[in-house]
């Protein structure tokens, strides 16, 4: 019988020292929330990887220490737009949602889409309607915005106004690679 295991991440980048403790507390809380769904209690159940993954991600979505759900990064309009996807490896069913706003748990919306077995990927207003019609609570506009996310956006816009390079999408390699004909 395979040995159950849950492995998680809380984001990658130039994470400053003052954020590390909050990340560690969130990582441990998410693992505790997930392990309950995996550990075979008295051999009765084989646990559920699906429930464990959803529980771990939900725990981090509601934690401001992570860039997902509450505490999400902001777009240039100062708004939260979220993406999520969930995939199981036996039948390879999946649910992918994008541009969700004002719901706490995009991973649960992705799971609802996967369970409906109709489509794999849904975005924008349709994803929003699926969220609300399958039990997600609609939060007041801006409820997912934190002060630190606002601060990060202010810094980004100041850098942009100064013409500083801060756009992930372009990279040094891109500059070198762009074909002179503009392809």
């Amino acid at each position: 019988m395979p040995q159950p295991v849950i492995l998680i991440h809380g984001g990658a980048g130039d994470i400053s020292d003052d954020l590390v403790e909050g990340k560690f507390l969130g990582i441990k809380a998410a693992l505790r929330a997930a392990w309950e769904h995996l550990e075979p209690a008295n051999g009765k159940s084989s646990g559920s990887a699906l429930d464990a993954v959803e529980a771990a991600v939900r725990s981090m979505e509601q934690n401001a220490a992570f860039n997902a759900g509450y505490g999400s990064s902001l777009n240039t309009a100062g708004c939260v737009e979220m993406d999520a996807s969930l995939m199981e490896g036996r039948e390879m069913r999946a649910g992918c949602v994008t541009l969700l706003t004002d719901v706490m748990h995009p991973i649960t919306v992705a799971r609802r889409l996967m369970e409906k077995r109709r489509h794999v990927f849904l975005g924008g207003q349709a994803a929003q309607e699926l969220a609300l019609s399958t039990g997600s609570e609609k939060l007041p506009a801006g409820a997912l915005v934190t002060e630190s996310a606002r601060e990060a956006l202010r810094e980004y816009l100041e850098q942009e106004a100064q013409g500083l390079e801060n756009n992930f999408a372009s990279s040094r390699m891109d500059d070198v690679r762009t074909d002179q004909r503009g392809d």
Partner: protein
Amino acid sequence: TVGAVAMDANGLIVAGTSTGGITGKWPGRIGDTPLLGCGNYADNTVGGVSCTGQGETIMRYNLAQRILGAIQQQGLTAQAASEQECKRMTERIGGTGGAIIIDHKGDMGISWSTPRMAWGYVRDGIIHYGINHNE
């Protein structure tokens, strides 16, 4: 971005990823997280992957698929495949990112080309976690 990969006692592998994207993105911008094979993937015969980092880079490289391909075609371990493909992605495209993997045998891979990545796992009832390279 946050992510989780799990294998249960039935051998089912599941991968899930959720994100707010990147600060200062244009309204309507979609990242790697909802794109299967880029930010998230699961196939019991190979493994499950969740990625994080610069979404434009991860999308253009197809990071999750490349890692699973290295396991399947090159016979690499989950750790070796994740290290190889995070490194190659940065060499090839210039951006950085990280990934967590559980392969079909239940072995794990944790690797990133960014300065840090917060990670953690439970296998034997004990929590293991870290954030720095070579921790």
